[in-house]
């Protein structure tokens, strides 16, 4: 073979040290020398990214970590009820409440009422056992006048203090580092004796919501693929002039505000909207039985597919552009019909683009918020809307953080699966 003649000729051996590492001409080890010579350029590169790095750390990474931390750590009770918290944690959760527990509780209540933090504490305990909020606020009002024995005084103020469940709920709230919120995020309940039990059927919402979110994301991804693949093909194979025009049409949504696009869909889809008017006009439906295309799951699916379509088209397009036309020609010259040439030669070459686009659309839609919030109505809400609800309305940040943490883990698992099945090196974003 001619290739044999391309072997490199061997150079005289370079000097090495005792360990066999190569030495540079001045006697220092070659690796050290290389590192020294690269240092200046490395420092310069680091200097260039430093401002962005600081910005991202300060405004993005650290807040996210703090929020995630809240998912497993809620110090409300411990901070505002400093006497009671350690005693409650030490309690075994089974024996009758002791006088010491009651005394610490009453003294803390007095302080908390003065500091106006009793409401926060009451809300925290209420999350573990509903109904305890009023118990706390009511008892705290009377706490200043209570005298020993405190246990009896508490029970006199409200008979719920005699219930062991109340004290157990307090014990959970008193433990700052707790899996309770993650348990709640997957519809389970963390009990005072450290066990988990599932919520009753009618109170389970989160797991179903996660499943629904995944299904919606999968459906949106599939719809984007089915609609986007032919467009990407056209873009990649039309003459430059035409394809540039088409490309602008694909990119146009990117240049329009998300809010504008979503509200445009409201105008299109609502029951007195453009689409329904057309349906009535051409007789698909009658005026009094217009389709409900918005403020439900249909609206969410339609609007999300439209908004995420470019994220599918662009990676596929860029992969298609790189496929040499000679591959399909070769397949045809070898006897393959148009369909065989496409399916066995062209399509496999586009898989990296499909993978990238699919992953991108799926991950984006799993955390999609504004579109479902605007057009989703009641049944078109996704997990992100619940996270927003707990952040803004119920102010249960720890539960929001736990839900977000689970979402993050799901995305990471998907990413890992993708890497295992397709290979992340195979992903082409553009």
């Amino acid at each position, binding site marked *: *073979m*001619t*290739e044999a*003649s391309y072997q490199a000729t061997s150079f005289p051996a370079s000097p090495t040290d005792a360990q066999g590492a190569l030495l540079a001409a001045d006697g220092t080890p070659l690796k050290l020398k290389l590192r020294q010579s690269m240092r200046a350029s490395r420092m310069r590169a680091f200097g260039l990214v430093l401002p962005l790095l600081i910005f991202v750390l300060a405004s993005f990474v650290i807040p996210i970590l703090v929020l995630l931390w809240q998912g497993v750590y809620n110090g409300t009770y411990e901070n505002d009820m400093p006497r009671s918290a350690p005693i409650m944690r030490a309690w075994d959760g089974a024996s009758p409440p002791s006088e010491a527990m009651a005394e610490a509780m009453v003294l803390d209540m007095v302080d908390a009422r003065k500091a106006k933090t009793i409401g926060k504490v009451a809300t925290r305990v209420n999350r573990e056992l509903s109904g305890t909020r009023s118990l706390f606020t009511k008892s705290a009002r009377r706490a200043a006048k209570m005298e020993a024995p405190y246990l009896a005084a508490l029970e006199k103020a409200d008979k719920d203090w005699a219930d062991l469940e109340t004290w157990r709920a307090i014990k959970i709230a008193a433990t700052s580092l707790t899996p309770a919120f993650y348990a709640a995020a997957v519809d389970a309940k963390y009990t005072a004796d450290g066990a988990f039990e599932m919520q009753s059927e009618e109170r389970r919402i989160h797991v179903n919501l996660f499943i629904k979110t995944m299904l919606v994301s999968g459906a949106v991804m599939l719809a984007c693929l089915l609609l986007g693949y032919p467009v990407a093909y056209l873009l990649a194979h039309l003459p430059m002039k035409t394809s540039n025009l088409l490309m602008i049409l694909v990119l146009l949504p990117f240049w329009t505000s998300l809010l504008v696009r979503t509200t445009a869909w409201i105008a299109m889809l609502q029951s007195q909207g453009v689409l329904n008017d057309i349906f009535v006009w051409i007789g698909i439906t009658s005026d009094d039985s217009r389709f409900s295309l918005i403020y439900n799951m249909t609206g969410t699916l339609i609007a999300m597919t439209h908004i995420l379509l470019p994220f599918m088209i662009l990676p596929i397009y860029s992969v298609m552009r790189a496929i*040499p036309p*000679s*591959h399909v*020609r*070769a*397949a*045809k*010259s*070898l*006897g*393959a*019909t*148009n369909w*065989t*040439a496409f399916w*066995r*030669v062209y399509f*496999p*070459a586009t898989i990296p683009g499909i993978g990238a686009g699919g992953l991108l659309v799926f991950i984006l839609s799993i955390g999609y918020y504004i579109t479902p919030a605007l057009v989703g109505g009641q049944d078109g809400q996704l997990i992100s809307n619940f996270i927003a609800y707990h952040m803004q309305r119920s102010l249960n940040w720890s539960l929001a953080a736990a839900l977000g943490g689970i979402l993050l883990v799901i995305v990471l698992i998907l990413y890992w699966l993708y890497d295992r099945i397709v290979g992340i090196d195979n992903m082409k974003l553009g």
Partner: protein
Amino acid sequence: MTEAATDRPFVHFDGVQKSYDGETLVVKNLNLEIAPGEFVTMLGPSGSGKTTCLMMLAGFEAATSGEIYLKGQPINNVPPHKRNIGMVFQNYALFPHMTVAENLAFPLQVRKMRRADVKAKVARALGMVQMDDFGNRKPAQLSGGQQQRVALARALVFEPELVLMDEPLGALDKQLREHMQYEIKHIHEQLGVTVVYVTHDQSEALTMSDRIAVFDDGVIQQLAPPADLYERPDNAFVAQFIGENNRLPGIVSAIENGVALVTLDQGPDVQALAVNCGAVGSRTMLSIRPERVQVNNVAGPNRLDGHVLELIYLGDHIRCRMQVCGRDDFIVKVPNSPEHAMLREGETCTVGWNTDDCRALDLAPGAM
């Protein structure tokens, strides 16, 4: 050759024209007949229409007018996958997601061949190009030369009678290219398939072909075996395109028994073979190969003064640039032999040639 040569051509381009925009013709009235088992090369500069001709034959471009016949059957309306023509592409076009063996099996699978037959044929094709041990590799794991071999094997594995090659060696380095030229030539001889080969590399064309069609401007300028093309070019373009060529412009002053008497623009009258020079009084371009120029001991009637401008030592010969008849691009190859003239820069000498070695051709556009 697999079949006895018939009087019916294997491939026949009949008045084929091709235009992409309806305004200019890329291929102008192509008529070409190729015999079974022949190795025909389409040679020409880029944009001369040679690849377009190949693509029309393969079925990827439609002829704008005229008809192409394969084994006597018109194929203009036959889709590429039914033409049963093997093709080797410029960048090999191996399918990157398939192994070498899967690439080779592809044409057999689409023909619904039995699994055992596929395996045997793939093994045989790999053996033919000496790639037996590479069946499980992906194309990306092969060197350029190896990919080239696989592409060749894939174009041959389904035993087509006609194989098209579109500059298949263009991406290889010089040494490997020369090696592959011989290998392709040997496979052609061994299998007896008809090959249509496209290249812009004249040495490649000369090495491999039975006949060469020199393309320029959408027209076949000359169709001839390699030796004829070099020794007896029909026109100034072919003389210029194939090998090195000295040109001297002049006016035909007489034609006698196929020999033209030409008055050079800045020199005496000389004799040349009247090949393509028109009638008496028309302008002509004399063409002489550098190795056919005699220096100092000139025997014949054609003698000119040469002024040595530059000498380049090339081992087996010395390349000498001279000023002759006012043109300073006159090249002479002086063999490096003891009996031959020693030249020095700045020296004046006599150059000349046998009348048979000098051809009076047309005045190609831009040839001045």
